[in-house]
Structure formats: structure tokens, C-alpha cells
């Protein structure tokens, strides 16, 4: 019988893991051997997020008045600047023509739409497998133990942009001045966008699974080999 806690205390997996019995290996020694192979690699270390998310931002499109103050609060109150590329909640790209953009000249949503509402794009805080985290060759996307938010560790990020290509909803942001990626980190449990919204359109609620929602774009299929190997530890 595998002692999960013993294994975890020796490995670099997140300690708040909630799943049991997923490991196929028969002994602790075998599991450790697999992990040690990975740990022995120098330089970049992949990081597979296993822990479940706790909270998420949900937004009501019929309440969005497209003031964009959520985007502004996100970067001004967190980063000290108004930075459209860095905004981690995304309004501007949908507010005129909806998520489909100008594919239809006269769209369904957005100010030009038949139904002139704006769909606010918020991070799904994906459960495992976390596309952005799995795509990161540096293991820069981690988990906040308090909120469960998936966040980019700027110290580790090298700005390669693979996370942006991996997110099915194009939710990754980028700080062009620091050359690092960023994403919604739920402001350590007190989201600025929620407070900035003049209609309470955005809510911070217990996590719901939004992974089945239509993708905004096709994902880039590339998964760094190291990350692929990580998956093999548990999934054979």
C-alpha cells in the first residue's frame, strides 16, 4: 500500500492534494525513483498542478456596462499602471462584436450586436489538467494555497508565451515591460475587479467547472517534453 503522504513529503508535488489512489506505481521506491529522475534535471522544472481550485470569478453579461473599470482596477491597483495587455479580466476584445469578433460583420453580441450585451472573459481557474501550467516549461504557474488561484510566479517566468498558446480561452496576459506572463490570481481572495464594477456584474464564488465552454481559439498542441514526462508519473 502506498503511503501517499510519505511520498508527497519527499516529492515536489503540492501538499494540498485531494485525490487519492491515482498513482499506478506499486511501491514508494518506484515512485520516488521516477520523481528523482525528474528532480535530478537541472534548470527548468515543470510543475503540474494537481490541487483543486477553490474560487472563481463569474460575470453576468447582462449587467456589463462596458466601462472597462475592471480591466483598469486589475492592473492599476495590482501593478501601478493602466496596461491593456496585462488586464487579467478581458472586456475590450468582446465589447464591440462579441467573442466571435468581426467574423460576422453584424454580430450577435457586443455593442453592434442584435443582443447588445458584453461577455466578460474571466479565468476558469482550471482544475487538473491546467493547460497554462502544463504548458509552462519553467514550472512558473503555481497555486495559491489560500485561494486555489493559479498564478504566474514572475521570478520563474521567462516570458516564452507558451501558456498563452495553451489556454483554450486566451486568458493569459502579458506584462510587456517586465517580459513576463500573468494571469488572474484572484487578488489573494479580494478581487479588485469585483469591487470596481459599478453594477456588481462580477462575482467571486465557489469554484464551478467551466472547462466545457466553447474555446475561444484552438490550442497550440505543443507540450514541453519535461512536462509530458511529469504526466507519465501518474498516468503511466
Amino acid at each position, binding site marked *: 500500500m502506498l503511503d501517499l503522504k510519505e511520498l508527497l513529503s519527499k516529492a515536489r508535488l503540492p501538499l494540498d492534494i485531494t485525490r487519492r489512489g491515482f498513482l499506478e506505481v506499486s511501491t514508494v521506491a518506484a515512485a520516488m525513483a521516477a520523481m528523482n529522475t525528474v528532480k535530478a534535471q537541472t534548470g527548468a522544472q515543470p510543475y503540474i498542478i494537481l490541487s483543486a481550485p477553490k474560487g472563481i470569478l463569474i460575470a453576468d453579461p447582462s449587467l456589463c456596462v462596458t*466601462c472597462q473599470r475592471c480591466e483598469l482596477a486589475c492592473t*492599476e491597483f495590482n*501593478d*501601478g499602471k*493602466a496596461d*491593456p495587455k496585462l488586464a487579467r479580466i478581458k472586456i475590450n476584445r468582446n465589447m464591440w462584436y462579441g467573442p466571435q469578433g468581426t467574423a460576422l460583420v453584424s454580430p450577435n453580441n457586443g455593442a453592434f450586436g442584435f443582443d447588445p450585451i458584453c461577455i466578460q472573459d474571466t479565468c476558469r481557474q482550471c482544475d487538473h489538467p491546467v493547460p497554462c501550467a502544463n504548458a509552462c516549461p519553467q514550472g512558473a504557474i503555481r497555486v495559491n494555497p489560500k485561494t486555489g488561484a493559479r498564478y504566474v510566479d514572475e521570478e520563474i517566468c521567462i516570458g516564452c508565451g507558451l501558456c498563452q498558446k495553451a489556454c483554450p480561452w486566451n486568458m493569459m496576459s502579458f506584462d510587456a515591460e517586465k517580459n513576463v506572463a500573468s494571469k488572474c490570481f484572484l487578488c489573494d481572495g479580494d478581487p479588485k475587479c469585483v469591487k470596481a464594477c459599478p453594477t456588481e456584474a462580477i462575482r467571486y464564488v465557489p469554484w464551478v467547472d467551466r472547462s466545457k465552454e466553447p474555446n475561444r481559439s484552438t490550442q497550440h498542441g505543443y507540450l514541453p517534453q519535461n512536462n509530458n514526462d511529469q504526466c507519465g508519473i501518474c498516468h503511466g
Partner: protein
Amino acid sequence: MSDTKKYGWTGQGLRINLSTGEVSTVPTDKQWIGGTALGYKIFWDEVPPKTQAFDEANKLVIAPGPLTGTGAVCSGRTSITTMYPTTYPRHMVGSAHLGGDIGAKIKYAGYDFIIVEGKAKEPVYIYINNDDVQIRNAGHIWGEGTRRSHELISQETSPNASVTVIGPAGENLVPMSIVINAKSHTGGGIGGVFGSKNLKGIAIDGDQAIHIAADKEDWEKLVNRHKELLGALTQTVVSRYPHPLFEYHSLNSRWSGMPGKQWGAANPPINVPLDTRRLSKMAFRTNAGEFFLGDKEWGLHVRNNGCFACPIRCYPVIKDVKTAAKFNVSPITEQTCGGLLFPVFFYPNLKLHPERNIEIAIVGSQLMDDLGLWCNYGQIQRDMVMMYTDGYWKKLLSKEEYDSLPWKKIDDVDASAMQEFLPKIAYRQGEFGKWMGETTPVMLEHFGIPLKTWSDDHRSLYWSNGHPKHHTNEDDAQLGCVLNCMWNRDPMAHAHVNFTRSGLPIKEMKHIAKVTWGDESAVDQIGDYTPVNEYKMKRLAWVIARTELHNMLGLCSWMGPWEYCPDEKNQYVGDPNIEAKVFSAVTGVKKTGDDLDKDATRAWLLQRVYTMRQLDSSNMRQDHDTVPGWIYWDPKDKKPFTKGTVRMDPADIQKSFDIFFEQMGFNKQTGVPTVDTLKEYHLDFVIPALQKEGLIK
């Protein structure tokens, strides 16, 4: 290492020459701050004062302010300074002011302003995407309405881009034409200037950061403090109806978000919350749709919209499928204020069918917007109706042309009348179409009607210099009258009327007046006016400064200034220095409220002396600052300064000018700044030209 971050300003603007195709960058002269002031300075330096609006030598200075693009409250405004086609007796420098998202995108693309000069050989549009500036062929878009033009340009550039376009009216050089941005946000009077340059529009996208100089926690606190100063639209600070959370109410207030009201066309409908005083519900305070169209609009209301970064949202989004089917228009309308309200002014018989006001607003606003026509604050409507009801059209048009126009539909309050005659104006068809598109005095001159016929008649609301009144004695007595003379078009100032129509009882207003301008006598109750005094004119100088300042910073003039606020615990006293605090926090440049007022007055003075050169005037009081006769009229012939009238007194108006000019350091007789005053405002550089042209000694 030097700090290359952009704090407020980006540090540079664009110069785009449509004749040569040359694009270059220009450093920002920060002493002028932004907006209209940058425009006036560029005009002083580069544009000969006698340039006409449609000359190739005319320029467009498109400038937001250092605050635009940030989360500074109500900072999404942009000014476009140019020679105005609708000014009279000659084209003079003026500014259009628009909201939407053009200002934010200009800043995010990396620019504080865009100078457009010259003339393209063929129809073009400009596409700016950060460093990349392209002048693109617009032949396939030329001729399209603004709605379709916007969508076509978005499709060729980016769905994120800010798009500003003209319609057929601007293309046809109709003076009464607009540019329109963000689907519904118009800049009045300047569509023809774009058209004269073969410029169909401008698309702008950008994603560069604007930094806040202040510490981010302090900035968050300041932004929230500024939000606390906000009331509802036009800074009304009391509820429309009695409400348990409000001390006062006023039937004129635009704070109409009340329990029991719904955004009825939302899916499913959204109830307006009880407590819209909360910052998290402040976008529910105002429904400009119901304010201008009446209670029935609530059932058609999808949501609110508005300018970038503003939490008030004064543009209603209205869904009316019945009107759409009846008149073959879009089921979705988005417009506000005059754009929504003034179409009914085409109908002198409206009172026979008052319930048709919504369909008229929908058909009229959509058509005016799509054709790119300007109403000039309702002047096009008033002119058309006066010419009709007083028999001028019948007398002056050929029988054939007169009979071709839909007068019966006008009489019958039929919205489809506009679908017949508005295109004639946009396409300059016939005598009616051609001259209705001209500014009022030009039309009257053509038809041999003395201007005084209009300016003595209250029905016209014509003021001077080609433009109508815009909040004058009906809102703020003498202050309003002198104010309406102070620019070359209608002043687009609301710092006075926001205050007088705040909804507060006069005793509260007088207390705020004492705190802000030094004495209670600075303000009277509307309709209970008293003779002019020094404090009223001191408040006028402040109104002028704050109007120009907001147009320099990129701040809205409908939601501010904020010398008063909804805080009953503080006797509704606000913070008249909030603009300075926000400016200092964003840019890192420390200025007080008085500093900025002086900067703004300096810019306004520059515009005034440039105008002197345009008019060859050494006596602005006589040549420019004229008031119409109708301000001295009352429907019941009540005397001035009696309760129940807004009638002015000629001697008192002249005394108002006397006091104002003296306070400003102008020659009292001529309304011209003295040399000492020009020097006091660091306008030494204007003195040689003014002296050379014999305009000052």
C-alpha cells in the same frame, strides 16, 4: 538608469500629413497639458488665422489628456480642435469634444495627440496600431453610413480598435456634420473637415501601458474617494423621487434609479437596486433613456453604456422591435442627450401625439448618426420649424421643391418624415438641403432673412457666431449669458448648470457657494434671479477655467467639477481640488487646483487672442461677445429679477461684462486682455503678433 515610464503623458504625439503621406512624431509640450490647449497652441504656431475650415491648411488636433486611458474617474474624453465650418462671420477656431474610446486608444497606442494635416488625393482612412501608422485606401467605404463604415473598418483592422468615422454628410462637406466614435459618441460640427481632407475615418489600436506615479495603494484610495464625490448624470446629487436613503429629492434630478424600476429589455429583466448610493451599484443611478424619453423607456432599456472609464454610463441601449418593424430601422438604439431628445423638435404638432416621442427619437437619432448629421444643439430643428411655421419655406422654395418635401408628415407627427428630408441635407439636395446644412446665419443670409429676426425671437434660441445658446439664462442668469460668448461656438460648459440644477435646495447651494467662491451671493435660485455682483462673475471665471481644464485633462464636463457631492453628512460640500489631486497622482507633477485653473485660463486666453486675429478685432466686446435680444423677453412680460422669470436686463448684462472683464484684467470697454494680463499668464509670445496686427497697443 532614467525612468522611461509614461506617467499620464506618453511624451509624444503624431503628425500625419495626408498630402505627402508623411508620418512623424512630435514631442508633447506638457506646459499646455493636453486636449484643447495643445490644439490652440498648435493653431497659434502653425495655422494662419484666416484659414478656412475646408482649406487644405486647416488641421485637426485630436487630443485626449494625461488622465485619459487611466482609471481616473470620468477621464475618457477627447477634444478635436480645428477651424469650425459652422462659426460666423468667418470660420474660427473651435473644439469638438467626444467620448467613447478614441482617447484611451490614442494613449495606449503611445500618443498624447494626433495632428492631421493636408489632404489626401483619394478617400483614405488612417489606421494606427502602436508604432505602425498606415494611410489606407477607403474608396470601398466612402459613401457608406457611419454604422456600416465602422464595422467595415473594424473588420479590416481589429475588433478591439477604436473607430471614428464620418458619414455622407461629412463627405459632402455639409457644415452641420459630425464625426462619430464608438458607434454613438459624436463630435459636432467637424465632419466636413474630415471630408475636405478625403479622410473617411481613423482606427486606433494600442496596448502600451500608462503608469500611475502615485503609490498603487494611494491611487486606489484616491480613485475610490473620487467615486464617492459622484452623483448621478450631470452631477445631480439627490434622488428623483422621495427615497428613504436620501434627504432631498427633485423632479429634475437624473438620479432616477429607484426600487420598482427595471432594465426591462435585459434578458431576463434586471431590477434596479434599492441602494444605488453604493459605489458597486452606481451605474444604476441614471437611465438617460427614461430622462429624455419618459417612463415607457424602462421597458425598452437593455442596459447602460458610455465613455471609457466612466462608472455613470449615460448612454442608454434601447431595444424597440415594434419601431424597428414599423420604420425599417435597427431594433437597437444607443444615443443620449440631444441626440435622443432633439428629433422631436422637428415636429411642431408633437402635443397631438406625445406618445410618438420614442419612435421619433429612435428613427431620428439613428438616421442623424448614420448620415453623420449634426443638430447643433437642436438648432437644425428649430431653424427648420421656424422657417416652416412662419411661412418662409413656402415663400422661398420653388413650388416644385416645396411640394416634394413631407410637410404633411411633419404636421401628422410621422417619424418617417425624417427619413425623407434628412438625407436631403446630408446630400445637399435642393435649396432646402443645401442651406439647412449651413450654419444658421449663412442660411438666413442666403434667403435674405435678417439675422435679428432670429436673435430677437426666443423660439430660435440662436445666440451668436453661428451657434445657439447652450445653458444660458434659463439655467444660470447673467453667468450663463456671458459664458455663452466666451468661445467661438456654444461653450459646451456644464460647470454652472450642473450646480444650479443639482437638485439641492437653494440654502445648501448657497452654503457650497460660500465655501467654494467666497460668498452665498454667487448663486441664485433658477427663476428667482438678482442683479449681477462680483461673486457671480468670479464663479463665471471658475466655470470657464474648469470647462477648459476638463477639456485639457480629458475629463468629462457633465459629471464634474465636484465642488459639491451627495454627502449629506458634509452638507453636500465636495472637493473642488479633486482634479488637481488626480492630476498630481497620475503624472507625478504636483499642482494645486489654483495652478490648474490658471493653466486652463491661459489656454482659454490663447484661444481668445487667436480669435482676435481671425476677426481683425481689437474690440471683442463689440465684435464677438454679442448676446441675442430674446434673453430680454418673457412670455408673460414679467419684469427681470422678479420671481418666476428668467428674463435678463440689458443694463445688468452690460454690467456683468464690465465686472467680468475687470476681474480678468481685460480692457473693460473692449474685452481684450491687457499686456500685463497676457504677461501674467505667460502669454508674452502672443504680444508681438497682436501688436503687429494692430489689435493691442
